[in-house]
């Protein structure tokens, strides 16, 4: 059992030394002044954007996942651990988008941390679930601004609980954000009218756009199924290529956080062109400006900009 002894001494020494150090440093520091701002940690870029819009100048938001990061491939950094531990409030998407990390967050919630899944306010009747697997809802609700609006209520509620003194301010900003999302949906509906209804077919890498399709009247065809990890079957590729030719679909789309290989292959097989790159599980780089054909410009590093980018890309390619 010598190894065991060695393990324990190896551990004891640094523990002892640093425990002394902690005590020493702990005695030296002055008591902290009372906190002014609410510290919010958010998982995906969409959740972080929503949180930042509601918290305004009453707090700051730390997003864990960067632009273009597939939530499945996200790796925690040392800083992220401290962000989560020191946060007053943790917001995540939920509906299994964050995978096992969500279990961890729920356990943190049970131990007294304020943790909210922003999608918990979306009525179950509005959620899409696969026919054969009840309860495993599609997590990509942000592609319908109306559904994402429900999430605003949850965020307002969460922030008011974390910081009751400023509840009024969160309420006000929440209302403003909701009206912006409403305007976004109206803008989208009007913009989409440029495509005749029978031409509204969206072919992409994975099934991220079902809520989008439902909201704007698109038939959505995901090549890979809903997981970004599964691969397209050969029969699927042939079937989709045939489908594209039959329906004379003008363009198909790649996604920013999924490998474009399969879509490129289908594009080659069916002779249809690739209409552009859509954002799916993450938004673009902050400060990257794009402009719509109507002259308005938007930042693809924001939720609204990301949504407009997707819609403009789709409509311009298909009309």
């Amino acid at each position, binding site marked *: *059992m010598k190894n065991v002894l060695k393990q324990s001494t190896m551990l004891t020494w640094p523990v002892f030394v640093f425990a002394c150090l902690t005590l020493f440093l702990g005695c030296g520091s002055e008591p902290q002044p009372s906190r002014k701002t609410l510290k919010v940690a958010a998982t995906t870029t969409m959740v972080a954007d929503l949180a930042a819009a509601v918290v305004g100048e009453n707090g700051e938001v730390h997003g864990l996942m960067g632009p273009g990061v597939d939530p499945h491939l996200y790796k925690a950094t040392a800083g992220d651990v401290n962000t989560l531990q020191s946060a007053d409030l943790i917001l995540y998407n939920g509906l299994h988008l964050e995978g096992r990390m969500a279990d961890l967050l729920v356990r943190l919630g049970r131990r007294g941390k304020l943790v909210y899944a922003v999608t918990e306010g979306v009525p179950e009747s509005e959620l899409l679930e696969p026919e054969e697997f009840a309860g495993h809802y599609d997590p990509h609700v942000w592609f319908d601004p109306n559904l994402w609006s429900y999430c605003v209520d949850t965020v307002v509620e969460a922030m008011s609980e974390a910081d009751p003194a400023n509840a009024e301010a969160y309420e006000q900003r929440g209302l403003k954000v909701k009206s912006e999302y409403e305007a976004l949906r109206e803008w989208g509906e009007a913009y989409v009218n440029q495509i005749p209804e029978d031409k509204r077919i969206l072919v992409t890498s994975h099934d991220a756009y079902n809520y989008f399709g439902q909201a704007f009247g698109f038939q959505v065809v995901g090549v890979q199924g809903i997981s970004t990890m599964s691969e397209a079957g050969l029969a699927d590729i042939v079937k989709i290529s045939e489908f594209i030719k039959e329906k004379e679909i003008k363009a198909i789309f790649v996604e920013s956080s999924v490998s474009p290989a399969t879509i490129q292959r289908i594009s080659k097989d069916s002779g249809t062109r690739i209409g552009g790159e859509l954002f799916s599980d993450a938004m673009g780089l902050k400060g990257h400006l794009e402009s719509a054909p109507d002259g308005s410009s938007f930042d693809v590093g924001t939720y609204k900009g990301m949504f407009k980018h997707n819609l403009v890309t789709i409509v311009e390619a298909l009309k």
Partner: protein
Amino acid sequence: MRDQFLPAFSFQNAIIEPWSLYFDSTIWIVTMGFLVAATCGLIGCFIILRRMALVGDAISHSLLPGITLAFLLTNSRDTLPMMIGAIAAGVVTVALIEAIRQSSRIKPDAAIGIVFSSLFAIGVVLISAYADTVDLDAECVLYGEIGWIPLEDRIVLGGHEIGPLPVIRMAVIGLIALGLLLTFYKELLVTSFDAGLAASLGINPGRYQYGLTLFLSVVIVSSFESVGVILVIAMLIFPGATSMLLTDRLPRILWLSAGFSGLYGLLGFHLATWLDASIAGGMTVVAGIIFTLVWILAPKRGLLVKFVFKSHSKGARTSSIETQAG
């Protein structure tokens, strides 16, 4: 996006703060890094000798049909059914690898390739045929993340908090591995180096092969669940491989592996803190750097010594290395 490729090194941020401000996170992440590296390293020493070093990578792929079947049977993506499916798939993987190599002329590396690619393919087929509409992949439903260890539930024993659940579990698994090693040391040693000799001593090599690899599959899957995949695959290989560059004697290799494991955990954590990067990645990079240093600078067999020695007397040195290699 980072503002600069390499952030300035700040002693305060990278060394002092983790052990003062964030002591409670740091201690458990470093301890967990050490425990995973030491446990995987301990078993790794034997699997390297058996030319099965890539079995960790193999299992990370071949558990796909296990979790898919577990999901189809339970309609749940909770950790428990996923773990059970993954362990079952891991056990099947190593049992098949052993069966192929023991009953045919196929070498272990080829046997690993055959088994894991077939099982992975079965998993892909199962998912695309039956579970296409849910998000089901090991990265998302099974693999853990070493960075989250401090946030896990703490085990309290007799009023004292003794640590996060995964750390305690890993320590128990490590102790079991150590206990098994001490109990079956002679048998493992002989069967790893010379199956023929083992048989003549009345030790059934097949039984120990199965025993070791079955235990291995349980260790690997539970480590995946606690800390993710890259750290486990790396730690099955690095501690043993690095130590083997320094000595030939198995007891020393095992001791050195434990020592290296501590270094990986500690230095890797600080590297990750400095760069604000993935912690498992940091620990693995440190393991790679230490391996490279040892490879070049090892006192007896390092590249440097070989190079210097070669220019003096070529013959004696190469012949002794060949004998050892054979």
